[in-house]
């Protein structure tokens, strides 16, 4: 079996690698690129620990072939914080003690971010169903759901402020 050459974008960086045709994106990330933040809990798409986004769509990286992502964009947990600044979800997970052992946390964060990109005002039920593909055995999900709802609330406030600012700016420009 000959290896396949792949060019892709991971967390905004153009990345090249070779992989076997039967190698999953998860194995490529972890074993070839040293990006071990994405976790393997089952290898069969049942636990969500390996969640990443592929062109903005939430996927289990264990169910995606490494060769499939050629020419596409992959986002992983390693790309979530902006340098030293944590993403609001990461900060809220810490404040709410939404992790115990932490193995499922990267997957939950990636999945929750994907939810908030689509819906910044989810109900508790919407959060619970969106995250139903991610297994956590420690927390009973209570604090995870609270952290996501609290993040959404804060992000709505920020969004409101910035849109208010924009409107104010627009108004000012019009006035001038």
């Amino acid at each position, binding site marked *: 079996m000959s290896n396949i050459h792949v060019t892709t974008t991971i967390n905004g960086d153009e990345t090249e690698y070779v992989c076997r045709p039967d190698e999953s994106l998860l194995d490529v990330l972890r074993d070839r690129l040293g990006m071990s933040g994405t976790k393997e809990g089952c290898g069969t798409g049942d636990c969500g620990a390996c969640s990443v986004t592929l062109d903005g769509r939430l996927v289990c990286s264990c169910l995606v072939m490494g060769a499939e992502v050629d020419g596409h964009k992959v986002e992983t947990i390693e790309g*979530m914080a902006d340098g030293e600044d*944590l993403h609001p979800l*990461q900060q809220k997970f810490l404040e709410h003690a939404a992790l115990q052992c932490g193995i499922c946390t*990267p997957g939950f964060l990636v999945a929750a971010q994907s939810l908030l990109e689509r819906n910044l005002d989810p109900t508790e039920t919407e959060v619970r169903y969106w995250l*139903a593909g991610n297994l956590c*055995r420690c927390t009973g*999900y209570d604090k995870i759901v609270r952290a996501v709802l609290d993040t959404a609330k804060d992000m709505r406030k920020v969004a409101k402020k910035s849109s208010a600012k924009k409107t104010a700016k627009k108004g000012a420009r019009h006035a001038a």
Partner: protein
Amino acid sequence: MPLDAKTSNDKKAFKSVGTSPIRPDGIDKVTGRARFGADMSAPGMLVGRILRSPHAHAKIKSIDTSKAEALPGVKAVITSADLPKYKDADEDILINIMARDRALYDGHTVAAVAAIDAAVAKKALKLIKVDYEIMPHVTDVDLAMLPNAPLVHPGRYDGMAENEHLALALQEQGKAKSKRKSTNIVSRYDFGHGDVKKGFKQADVIVEHEFTTEATHQGYIEPHACLANVSSDGSGELWVCTQGHFMVRDVCAALLGMDVSSLRVTPSEIGGGFGGKTTVFIEPVALALSRKAGRPVKVVMSREEVFRATGPTASSSIKVRLGAKKDGRFVAAEAVLKYQGGAFPGSPVEMGAMTAFACYDLANVKIVGYDVVTNRPKQAAYRAPGAPMSAFAVEGCVGELAEKLGMDPIELRKKNAAVEGTKSSYGPTFGPIGLVETLDAAKKHKNYKAKLGKNQGRGVASGFWFNFGGNTCVNINLNVDGTLALAVGTPDIGGSRASMCLMAAEELGIPYDDVRAIVADTSSLGYNDVTDGSRVTFASGLATINAARDCAAKLCKRAAQIWDIPADAVKWENGAAHPAGANAGDFPPLSIKELAGQAHSTGGPIAGHYEVNADGAGPSFATHVVDVEVDPETGATKVLRYLVVQDAGKAVHRAYVEGQFQGGAVQGIGWVLNEEYIYGEDGRLQNAGFLDYRIPVCSDVPMIDTVIVEVPNPGHPYGVRGVGETSIVPPLAAVANAVSAAIGVRATTLPMSPPRILEALKSKSA
């Protein structure tokens, strides 16, 4: 106050303890930087893979590894021939990690390979030829106890005692005597006091049921993983996700014939354990492969391997009889418990037997437990091992008694509740305990007053767990800037670093952020028992507090030297040394930062230590209240509300204490409603994956409400009790009682999956 003075728990005002700061390892865990078992690699590393028996019970006539060994890229193949043979307590572990003459369960390790990559290793496994002779098997606990059952270990349990067990077990079931000399019954446990026969004669109401529970898996999301590296001089290093790296070191060294000092084990971050990572599986295999190949070997289990070959908990069959007077006072209680723990002795039946009636003050109580072997994987500890099953049975009967007597279930429990001074059902007399306090708090909670609709039911259950202490060793090193490096030896499975930092900060009167805790490897710290028995916050906490006191005493001594006054004229307060007493003199206090800054020039580094085999872990009781709705069309149960009330003694990090309550409750919900090991006629596990072994997901459960009760444990300087395990004891019974109330039929078989509930509804209408 002198440093060694006993603090009064209930009056102590805490500054750090009882808050919920962000854990020190938090940022690593939300950014993907934290390194778990499978996240480590080494130069020249090989991939290890394991060949497992597809048969429940088979003689291994021969194993031919020659073709696998000849495959290019294969660097080592091992079988039981590569591991030493000896007879002692470790032999069961040795046989469990690598089968010898017989495969004892589906998934039993038969051979292992190390190759240059996963593809080659996989190919090599297919080239190993094992000649099996299939033998009769048994996987059910009741069937395994029958006189004609296939024997898991022919000839091993054929002593007088075992035959007596079999005879008694048959007699209890009203069955005829057997001439069989050998059995699958390994041990019999007896507990109790008083005269149950007399007691039942006084009873106005008697409730009696037989219950069964299926085996469930701990279900940690991180599969077992390790990286072994044995050098040609025989010394080795192991990176591993485990609840106890000192245990791993000692057991692996013994199994492989190494000196303990030549094996250094470093614990990775651990992705859940719940008891399942308190023993070894792949670790000795990885070390043996590395030794043979002369290169580092990484072994990571697949999820299927985790289900087939690591310890689930026991399945059980339990009979309970409970008698009470009209006023609700219990007069007699009796239980027979049968637990199968897989192919080796050690099911947690004795703890199931001891905890069964521990919530109650009983004059007449008798409990018998049988430990039974079957052709299933060796059970491993699972959160309060043995207790959830017996609580399910006993609390089910208590619930039914409340219905029959027309009493409030909390009042009935309160009327019979164990209190300080009660002689427990397993023997010892209780010290200060908080069961009544949990019952009172549960009754007051708004959930207990919520109105129930059609097809809805409420369930109540209480639970007990002993909690343990154990061997513990802690170091505190004072850094030059006055911050502290705290080294503990108990892997942090749920935020315990934060609790340790809180206790050290509390004791030394410094900010929480000035203490950083690590989990030290086996060569950097003295021996620590496994993270189990809800012991970490209690025992590592107690050792941390005492190490901090040791550190404070040395800081006082240093200040005394600087001031040139006697050491006992200095006291430690609010993060600084102060002159104390009449003739101490008048010196401005020396802060920890000032003392640390000049430590190197005033006598050298300052460090605190504490080593102890901690006793005095106070037991923890809990009461759970749950409301469910059962859909009569589908048989599906929805949990509407859930309340956990538990005695924490003193909650050190409140959010993580709540987290233990919530996590235990939801694991219990999975156990009672969904989870089960399903074996086919062929003795093979049919649902070895998260798709078919369904643990609760986010949309299955509501918010889990919590109330922390604090009845201080006199055995801990701050009153701490362990909280990790008790939370899984009541949920099976609480949910079952709620389901029973909703459908009007007593649920006695777990899991209460939709088909079982439909069946129960059908039998009710018929």
